[in-house]
């Protein structure tokens, strides 16, 4: 049996200059013969498929292009991985600003989701020494990988026609052969992973707490071990068969669908009213079983934006930040104009925004002049968050 272990990059190419797309379209590799994935000299117009004796992890993606005739990045509603035909984007909605190309121009060492040349915005692979809490996307034997690109409608600020190429670089870690998988896990620098693997187990482990409310709810432990066989791989975090307790990656953003009322907070809720679509609801209800933690934020403020608040029902002192064009603490990895300076980002929150047994939401206030809603030719504000959703047993 041929063995293998390592990292590889799959280039999913969507040459819209050859086969164009339109506002509101949803495109996957294979929908047209022009949409392909490439690896070395391999080139196929269909999803990538793991070998029958292979386990893999999607560590991250880079989004390259497209750029429209105005020199702006083509608006993308969401890019989401599709595993064996299943859209796993419950909490994943990546747009054109959120997953920069690591080698597009000067390297950006401040990009937080990077491990050497690999992009790890989903999570560093268990196979590559990632933590026991990693949320890399797990692909079991024979699982397929594809990417869906959805474009916004014109009314939501999308381009009517997309004629510029988009490429998604998918960073994969893989082990072919069960002994290779075990060797990798046993060699992990993470004690929980290596120790469990030595006992033929794969362990997922995380302790989540919040000092501010430790008298209300103490540290919670997510601890789950499965047999270290390939059959169990897709039951790990972010696998198709993931089971509780589990951790899910959140990478998402929100845009205002309604103009702000001057000097009043706008809570980013109610799709179709304050936000455009359901995944943009930035209000979370944490129960005794489900917790949230957000670690990074990126904002493209509107010139009339003044403040962003990370409200937390359990705290009388929610995190509040001035967020103006001239004073924006939360840099988005990419800006709308290609010519704009790349300044790094997203920014790590000074303290993780943690919701345990409480309700939290993001609220925005203008500077006294209303921020318009996104529309054709009109720009509002955009807030992106990177975090995790924890579900206990």
């Amino acid at each position, binding site marked *: 049996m041929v063995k293998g272990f390592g990292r590889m990059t799959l280039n999913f190419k969507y040459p819209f200059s050859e086969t164009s797309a339109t506002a509101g379209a949803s495109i996957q590799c294979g929908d047209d013969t022009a949409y392909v994935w490439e690896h070395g000299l391999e080139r196929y117009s269909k999803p990538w498929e793991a070998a029958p004796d292979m386990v893999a992890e999607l560590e991250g993606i880079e989004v390259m292009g497209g750029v429209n*005739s*105005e*020199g702006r990045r083509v608006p993308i509603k969401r890019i989401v991985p599709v595993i064996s035909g299943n859209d796993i984007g419950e909490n994943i909605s990546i747009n054109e600003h959120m997953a920069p190309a690591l080698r597009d121009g000067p390297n950006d060492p*401040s990009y937080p989701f990077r491990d050497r040349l690999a992009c790890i915005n989903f999570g560093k692979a268990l196979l590559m020494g990632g933590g026991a809490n990693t949320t890399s996307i797990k692909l079991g034997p024979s699982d397929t990988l594809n990417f869906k690109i959805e474009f916004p409608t014109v009314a939501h600020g999308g381009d009517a026609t997309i004629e510029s190429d988009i490429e998604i670089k998918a960073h994969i870690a893989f082990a072919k052969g069960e002994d290779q998988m075990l060797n990798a896990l046993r060699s992990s620098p993470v004690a929980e992973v290596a120790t469990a693997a030595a006992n033929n187990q794969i362990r997922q482990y995380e302790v989540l707490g919040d000092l501010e409310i430790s008298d209300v709810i103490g540290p919670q432990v997510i601890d789950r071990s499965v047999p270290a066989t390939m059959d169990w791989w897709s039951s790990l975090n972010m696998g198709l068969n993931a089971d509780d307790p589990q951790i899910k990656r959140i990478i998402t953003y929100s845009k205002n669908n309604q103009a702000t009322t001057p000097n009043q907070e706008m809570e980013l809720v109610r799709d179709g009213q304050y936000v455009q679509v359901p995944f943009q609801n930035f209000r979370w209800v944490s129960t005794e079983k489900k917790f949230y933690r957000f670690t990074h934020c990126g904002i493209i403020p509107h*010139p009339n934006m003044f403040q962003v608040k990370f409200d937390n029902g359990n705290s009388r002192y929610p995190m509040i930040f001035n967020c103006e064009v001239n004073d924006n603490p939360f*840099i988005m990895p990419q800006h709308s*104009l290609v*010519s704009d300076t790349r300044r790094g980002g997203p920014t790590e929150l000074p303290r993780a925004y943690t919701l345990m047994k409480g309700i939290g939401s993001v609220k925005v206030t203008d500077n006294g002049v209303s921020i*318009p809603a996104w529309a054709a030719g009109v720009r509002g504000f955009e807030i992106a968050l990177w975090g995790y959703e924890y579900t206990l047993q």
Partner: protein
Amino acid sequence: MAFAFFPIGSVGLSTIQGTPGYWVKLPVGSKPIRDIYTDGAPAATDGKGAVMMALETNYSIVLEDCEDAWNETAPANISVSADSADKKVGTSSVKLDIAAGASEGAILSEAIASPISLLGYTHIEFWIKSTVNTNAGDLQILLDNTAECVSPLETLNVPALTMNSWTHVRLALANPGLDISIASIGIKYAKDIGACVVNIDDFKATHTVTKFTPLTISDFVKDDVYFRLSSAIDSAYYGDAAMLVYYISPDEDPTCSN
């Protein structure tokens, strides 16, 4: 300091970010605008805001003020009158009510009482409006040193016109060195464009030079490539003008984070 230098023939926009006005978009690839001078028109040498470089009038002379109806010739099927209701300069324009039966090549002319030498002039300028769209050359302007423009020294094509819109036209003289003692000015119905009404006003001979004109910027979109001028640029400048814009981009803003 970032700057952009570009021809302004096609930069007039109407509505940006929901705000109507005379918007200008920086060329593709320009750094976005973090800040730009908006406190009135700067001096041309201030190095801030926007400065237009365009052919502008250095000196001029009125050829025909169009305050009364042209009557040197009376071509068939073209009724001529002074129109005080629809004019651009003074109290009237000259109105040509062209009937369907007007002949291609018909010439309406007006005598210039004191013949004018155009030595030292480079262009003629005038206002014109038509009730139908026209192509370049459908109408022509004639200048002659003999009456009724029978042997014109200058035959100048009027550019394409958009119906029902006054257009300021500037045409380069073909042979200014020969334009001595101009005694007649005319408009020629060079192509049969059907029944229509044409108004003309304020014919001048001008000498033009490239001038630097500071422009007043009234608004801009932060961190984007749009700025709004306080007023529209005369369409006669299209194709001849360039704009130099000085501004601060995000990467040089001292208050910029990171």
